[in-house]
């Protein structure tokens, strides 16, 4: 409780809730409509729609961690120790595994037959 312990943040909490709800609703609308102009595109390995989902997810994660988990009010050093470590390790693992998955797909796909003889 590095911040003022007696000050109420209810207004801020409801604002964050509103924002998270709006983001979720936007995600769901895009997920249901799946506009071709975003869905059928390819940008840095996946569609623009997927990038939109990923970015909105990270925005949600930011608000949950910063305002609900109070990271914003922790000491900068503690916040960095937590966030930087996780972000680095997760990015590292994700990058390696997805590159590997793509490679396996490229190697494997030619051996999978989609036609059969009677």
């Amino acid at each position, binding site marked *: 409780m590095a911040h003022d312990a007696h000050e109420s943040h209810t207004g801020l909490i409801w604002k964050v809730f509103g924002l998270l709800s709006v983001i979720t609703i936007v995600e769901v609308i895009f997920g249901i409509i799946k506009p071709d102009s975003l869905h059928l595109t390819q940008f840095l390995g996946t569609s623009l729609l997927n990038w939109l989902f990923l970015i909105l997810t990270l925005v949600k994660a930011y608000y949950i961690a910063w305002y609900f988990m109070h990271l914003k009010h922790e000491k900068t050093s503690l916040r960095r120790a937590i966030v930087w470590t996780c972000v680095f390790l997760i990015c590292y693992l994700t990058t390696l595994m997805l590159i590997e998955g793509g490679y396996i797909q490229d190697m494997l796909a030619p051996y999978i037959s989609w036609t*059969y003889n*009677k």
Partner: protein
Amino acid sequence: MESTVATDNSNQEVWSGGGKKPFAASYGKMMMWFFIMSDALTFSGFLVAYGLMRFKFLESWPIADEVFTHVPFIHGHFPMYYVAFMTFILIFSSVTMVLAVDAGHQMKKAKVTIYMLLTIIGGLIFLGSQAWEWKNFINGTYGAVVLQDGKIAQFVDNEGHQIALSDFVSKANSERVQHTRSNGLWYVKDAGELPPYTLNEVVTSFNANPDVHLRTEQIDFDVKKKTVLSKAEASTYLSKATDVVMGANLKVNEYGKTLFADFFFFITGFHGFHVFSGILINVIIFFNVILGTYEKRGSYEMVEKVGLYWHFVDLVWVFVFTFFYLV
């Protein structure tokens, strides 16, 4: 160990053996962050494994909004609505949790009690929703056939919308009982619960009905939809079919890749288990609040610590939601 036992107020502010608090955080809070970080890495390990397998089978992975299409009390095709509701519930229970923490900072016992109760109710609704989601996933909607190499083939109408077996299969006069180890060959077992139709009935009805088509798992990347076969190709597929599948288990499922269902069960199950234990911890803290434990202690920091865990569960769901239902 005196730092973990709150005997008086001043003791809680420091770690044992020193007058200073590292990062200005109490011992308990720091340990909760240690746990959350390790748990975050565990979950990211699971989700990354899902990503690896999905990339490996990129051309044939099931399309999520064709799988999760149920809404309670309404029949029809409603992708995403229900899981959006679940997400909303979990975010809302996070809000009541953070309001409880906020009220705790101001030492308002009544408010903390109410908000904790709302948080627990939100968690229970989420768990119930997840059970319902699992029920639909396990029972299945449409049914499919599995080929001898493990591929799944589903049935669609002229517009390419998936149709259920019950929509076009007419039951022949055959009797087929569940094959178990006790009533058949001891080393032979049905892959799962006996589907409502036999393979023969499905194939006969399929051939008899010109409006029913077969769809493979293969994704046509130009339109990002599953490939629908011609009737001639379909008959070559059906000649290799070995079983009818309805719903999902760990070995076979009607949606496509076995791994898809396995990861679904494992990751949402593991998350659901976190929600479950979160509810248990919340209930304990709830009663402690009512009993006035924290009022006597002079600090509601324990509410803040379980709050951290609860928000983390919410945070994980945000990612599970994205990777299972959206992307």
